[in-house]
């Protein structure tokens, strides 16, 4: 077991896993769930919104810090349109030119195509949005089978990933552990904790709230860019139909995975990526 840290700012790179587990965003004494293990990687970027991708200078600073600390730099990328794909290409081109070689988490098959055709030397990690399993916060977790977690789900995508040269498969704590598999494909099984994503989209309330013209929001706002007013913050979310702690971070809703979910999922993980707070 090893840890990765999904940090909100460069300063957080010097924190310990324990600082992430017991924070203002978690409400249970969960340190016993998390064994002592080394931190091997730092994660940055965005999994959910192309407007939140880092600039070239920030990305370079992040990679430099990782090199200095001898940690793997991992760039998270979201589902993208042509504009987002172009932005990722520019970002990677700049990093590679400066001798950086971050691992890249892809959540979009087009990003994978870009990586395979233009950046074949960068380690590829298949992101958690490729796991389309249920994460409905109103539902209970599926019971484990008597023989243990069923790792059949995801077997096709794992086989494809291994054949395409992907090195790791990532997920968060969904309702049915098993997607990460039994490790037979040689993919590193990576689990994002403690925030499970619920739903995401381009019609973003945060973007709408920051838009001065009311006729430029929701669907009509798709054509306009976003200055990422959500960067650096998340909002607590309250719903009548679930007791789970929920947050809205940018265009995505999250909840804190209950401890019993965490322990079942962790049994299948080689790396746990702890998130400093909910982040899109």
């Amino acid at each position, binding site marked *: 077991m090893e840890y990765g840290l999904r940090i909100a700012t460069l300063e957080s790179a010097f924190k310990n896993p324990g600082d992430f587990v017991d924070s203002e965003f978690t409400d249970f004494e969960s340190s016993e769930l998390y064994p002592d293990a080394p931190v091997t990687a730092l994660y940055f970027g965005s999994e*959910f919104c192309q407007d939140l991708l880092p600039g070239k200078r920030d990305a370079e600073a992040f990679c430099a810090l990782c090199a200095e600390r001898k940690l793997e730099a991992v760039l998270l990328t979201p*589902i*993208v*349109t*042509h504009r987002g*794909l172009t932005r990722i290409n520019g970002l990677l081109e700049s990093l590679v030119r400066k001798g950086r070689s971050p691992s890249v988490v892809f959540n*979009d*098959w*087009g*990003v*994978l*195509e*870009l990586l395979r055709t233009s950046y074949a030397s960068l380690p590829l990690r298949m992101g958690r*949005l*490729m796991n*389309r*399993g*249920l*994460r*409905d*916060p*109103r*539902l209970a977790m*599926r019971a484990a089978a008597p023989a243990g977690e*069923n790792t*059949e*789900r995801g*077997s*096709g*995508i794992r*086989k*494809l990933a291994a054949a395409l040269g992907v090195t790791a498969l990532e997920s968060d704590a*969904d309702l*049915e552990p*098993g997607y990460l598999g039994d490790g037979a494909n040689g993919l590193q099984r990576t689990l994002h904790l403690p925030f499970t*994503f*619920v*739903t*995401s*989209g*381009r*019609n973003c*309330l945060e973007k*709408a709230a920051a838009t001065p013209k*009311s006729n430029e*929001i*929701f*669907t*009509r706002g*798709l*054509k306009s860019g976003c200055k990422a007013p959500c960067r650096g913050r998340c*909002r*607590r*979310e*309250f*719903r*009548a*139909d679930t007791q789970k702690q929920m947050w*809205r971070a940018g265009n995505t*809703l999250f909840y804190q995975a209950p401890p019993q979910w965490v322990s079942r999922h962790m049994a299948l993980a080689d790396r746990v990526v702890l998130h400093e707070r909910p982040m899109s």
Partner: protein
Amino acid sequence: MKILAPLRCASEVGPLLAAGADEFYCGLAPPGWKAAFGAAWSNRRHPDSAAVLNDDALREIVAVAGSAPVHVALNSPHYPAGAVQMLAEFGTRLLRDMGISALIVADMDLLLALAEAGHADRLHLSSLATSTNAGSSSFFKGLGISRIILPRHLTLAEIDQCVIDGIDFEAFLINDGCVFEEGLCATTHDAGTFCLADGDGLKCMSPAVLDRYDFWKWIQNNCGCSTSRGFPLGPCGLCAIPALHVAGVTSLKVVGREASTERKYASVKLAATARDIARGGGGAESIREATIAMRGGGSLCHQQHACYYPDLWNGLTERSA
């Protein structure tokens, strides 16, 4: 451009063909599905309200449809363990023995199993797979998929950038919006529609923004009604047909398998009217005039509240009109 119509039973085929449908799609669970997988859905819509009754009913649909292709949706974004094998065998039977033209698939395990069984060229990638750029189009073309159904929340300019040669593209045309990106929504409608209550418990946000959010969600839900003339009143991209044609989209989806035959008929009639105007060289403005005259709901249209493709209005894509 083809109008793709939803249906549930053979009696709907005739009226929908008469209204202008060129091809059909429907949903059907394999025999034994419920016993094996309980409440899990084999496709994106509720089996009780939107699916074809059984194999015999599907055979009848195919027979009545004649030369019009019938596609079957097996497009749940995820399946419980064991389901993919059953669905892959079922899909093979649908294609080989029951006259189905293509399967609409979202789950990658199922898609890969069907491709491995030699059916890639009869697979349509569901919008739930969220293919939103040309690189992704290329990836699925490489797998041999014959059609990509583009997700709802793309602008016309972005659709234009997704389209590549050698594979067909389908786009949403009318009815039933989604608040979030459908393929990235990890909730189930079986537990109630999650998004309709979204924002209700959100603190520290302007009430004015939340009011507009509620209004927009209401439109995505077809305004909870139809017009006094019996036409649906919800998300619509009819006047974008000329632009979609120029972009290279070849099939236009009318949404609503679970709708009444009357609503399906009205929707297809609107779609075909718009398509025929476009075929005759008419542009976006002509289509708007004609469809508002049929449907009503002019203010919703002119204020761009119900647009699937609102960038049509600012001149970005008027080149085709």
